[in-house]
Each structure stands twice: as structure tokens, then as C-alpha cells.
């Protein structure tokens, strides 16, 4: 997995059961459809909570992070 750490646009759902689930994101000018959220975990950065998601588009694994304070999504790492 290579570190990327770039801001990205994400289409996500705030649900009642699964609190937050990303569905699609744009990195550079490519759109990636998320097929599967394989794992999620939370940690903190100061008083912000970062919600991490390991996701796959069927071919590549990405790690996305949502900062609950700045409301910014980042592509943290990928094995692409």
C-alpha cells in the first residue's frame, strides 16, 4: 500500500444502521465505484475523529478517511 493522502470528493450515505458508507469517489479525474467496504475503524486526531474505510472497486484496495471536524475526505493509501 502506497501513501497518497490527497483530498477527494466522495459520494456517501449517512444511514440509520450503517452510520456512514462511501459509495463512489473521484481521484484526479477518475471516478471509482466502491463495490465493497471491507473494513472500517476509527481513530482520533486531536479532537477530530477520523473514520477510516478500507474499500475496493473490485480490482484495487483503497483506504479512505473522513475527518469529522473538517468534514474532509482523503484518499489515504492505495495498492494501485
Amino acid at each position, binding site marked *: 500500500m502506497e501513501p497518497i493522502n490527497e483530498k477527494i470528493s466522495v459520494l456517501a450515505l449517512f444511514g440509520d444502521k450503517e452510520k456512514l458508507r462511501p459509495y463512489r469517489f473521484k481521484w484526479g479525474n477518475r471516478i471509482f465505484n466502491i463495490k465493497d467496504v*471491507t473494513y472500517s475503524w476509527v481513530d482520533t486526531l*486531536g479532537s477530530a475523529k477520523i473514520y477510516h474505510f478500507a474499500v475496493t472497486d473490485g480490482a484495487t*484496495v483503497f483506504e479512505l478517511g473522513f475527518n469529522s471536524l473538517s468534514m474532509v475526505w482523503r484518499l489515504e493509501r492505495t495498492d494501485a
Partner: protein
Amino acid sequence: MPKTIILVDMDAFFASVEQQCNPSLRGRPIGVIGSDKRTVITAASYEAKALGIKTGMNKFEAKRLCPEIILVIGNNRKYTHTCSELAKIYARYTPDVEVYSIDEAFLDITDTQHLFGGAMEIGAQLKKEIKKTFGINASVGISHNKLLAKLASDISKPDGLRYISMEDAPSVLEDMPTDKLWGIGRGIGNRLKLMGITTCGQLGRMSETFLRSHFGIIGERLKEMGQGIGSFSVLKETAIAKSIGHSMTLPKDIINMRDIEAHILKLSEMVARRGRLYNLLGEVVSVVIRYKSFKTFTRQKKINTHTYDTHIIYDTAIGIIKVIRLAEPVRLLGVTLSGLREDSGQMSIFNECNKKDALIKSMDSINDKYGEFTVSWASYLDIRRHLGVISPAWRPSGLRRTDV
């Protein structure tokens, strides 16, 4: 009434989490390592175990044994988060939960099992929920004490569920190799073997005098273990901890005193900060050192005051290390504050102390807001954050929680 104790133990925990995260790793031999500079495998997948890979093995050794092994750099945050989430699942079945390590927990379900259709039903439910939530397998052992619950889980791995009843215990133990028992390592197991004792059944029938003459005070305990006698007290986090400690496996082995000082400062700050958070002052500072060869030892020193001041803890710890005179590169360092008492909040009559207190408190609040080590002591600046290896003492909450 006999107790009913469950042990839940994740199968190949770190490796399973990594395989769950990355589908291309599933079904393949993987080894998890702490950082790209570390060489020790901290967890191996079942596929890797089948090829002879063991936890603690060096990565070069592993590559030689199994060239197709995939080495994955672990992420402790994933594991600690999962451990905290697991504790929430356990709490639905009983308030008496002892998170024993990052991937093992004891549950005392004596008084609650009837609410859930019995112990086996709880075991099956736990496995199902863990699989559904995290996609990983757990092995569950159930018995009337912790020793046998652990054994039941160990012998049913992977993906196991096993109950050892009081009536079954003697027949399960009769032919069980002694080193399968929790607490009998390969060391004692081999010494027993040399005396011709290979099974728990045999061990349980040995005379106490004989065992004591060979093993000293643990001789008696060994006999009891052979008979399957063990503790059933599930220890919850107590209100007042006996000590506050942090340890870390370093990204690479170090011998340079400057490097050691910087790490000791970081650890002292983490310990002191936790003391301040919980209003606990300590009067004994201990340092644990693990050499490259895994030789590990602890030295401690009593200070003449109760404190949670980073600098006093740091100075004491460094004083201890200077006396030791390191013989080998250091792999792991730890700092512990013990002899704790609660801070009564008394104002110091010396103004200097109050100023320092105020400075420390404002540093703490800045770090609360912006993240650990946003503001820190200048001498710490050279050490960059890194992924350490998780201490087995990690807990999801309370004083023993360590930032990793």
C-alpha cells in the same frame, strides 16, 4: 455453584484483519510486521502457519522457508479499534468482562447465561456477531475456570467452539500434552518431558514434593494445572490502577543514548499525561528494556515525592538507564509510574511549581484539541511518529490503554 467462563480469542488476529481489509490477501500466506524497518512477524495467517511460519519469526527466515509469503505492514489503530468494538459486543452478554489481551477476553456468564439460552448459545452468538461485524473468525472456549476455557478455545482453533464440562475435564486432560496448557511454555514443557511427564494426566498425578524439588514454588501450581484447577475470577478494570505504564517496540533497534533519551521522554510524557488525566501521582518509576536478543529486564527507583511531572519521571528513568550501561542494541523501551495515590489538589506553596503545573496543564489542553504531541518538549522533536508494535497490555479503555 460452579462458574461459567468463556474465553473468546480471535484467530490469527492481525493477519485476519489484514486479509479482511484486502481481499487479494485472503486464502494466501501472509505475515504481518510492525513497520517497514521491523523484521519480526507479529502475526501469521493460517495459510502461512500451515507452511511453517510462526509468530516471532524473522522475516528473512520466513522468506527462506516460504518464498511466496506476503509481508504486510500492520496498522495498530485497526486492531485497537476492533478490540474496543469487540468489548462492546461482549458487554451485551455480561458486565463481567476481562479484556485479557488485544485479541482475547474472558467473560463470566455465570449469572447471565440463562437469559441467552445457555453458554453454548452465547458462544455461537458471539462467533456469529464477530464474523458479521468484522469478517473474522474467533474461537470460543467455555468451562468452569479460565485455564480450561483457554484450553477449550486453543484446542478447537481455528473457528472453534468447545465446552469442557467438569465431568469431561479429566478425560480431556488425560492425554493432553502439558505445553498445551496456558502458562506452561515450551521451556517448562521440555523440562517435564525430560522427566518423562508428557501429558496433563501424568502431571496431575505427580507428587507435590517431587514437583517442588524440581520447579520450586510453582511445583504445586503445576500439579493443580495438570488436574485442570484454575482461577475463575474475571478481573474488571479496577477503579484505582496500581500503575500507569507505556512501552513501545522501536521501529529499529537503537543503542545511541540520544535516541534512547528521546524515546524515554516520549514515554515519560505519555505516562505523566495519563497520570494528570486521572489525577494520579506516583512515587516509583520503572524502566523496562528489551535487548535485540529479547533479553528483557526491569529496574525501578523510588523518588522522594509523588508526581505526575514529565521531567521528574524522565530524569528518574534516564538515571536508571545510565546506571545500567546498555550491553546490546535496544528493541523495546517502557516507562511505568507506580506507588500511585490520588491528587488531593493541594496548592503548592512554592510558586515555581504552580507555574510549571499551569504550563503542563495548558500543553495538555492544546494536545487534547490538536492531537498528541502537537506541543511537546524540544528534545523530542527528532523522533518522528511511527508505528510501534502493540503491547499485550493494551486495553480498550481506562488507565491501561496505551496510545500506539
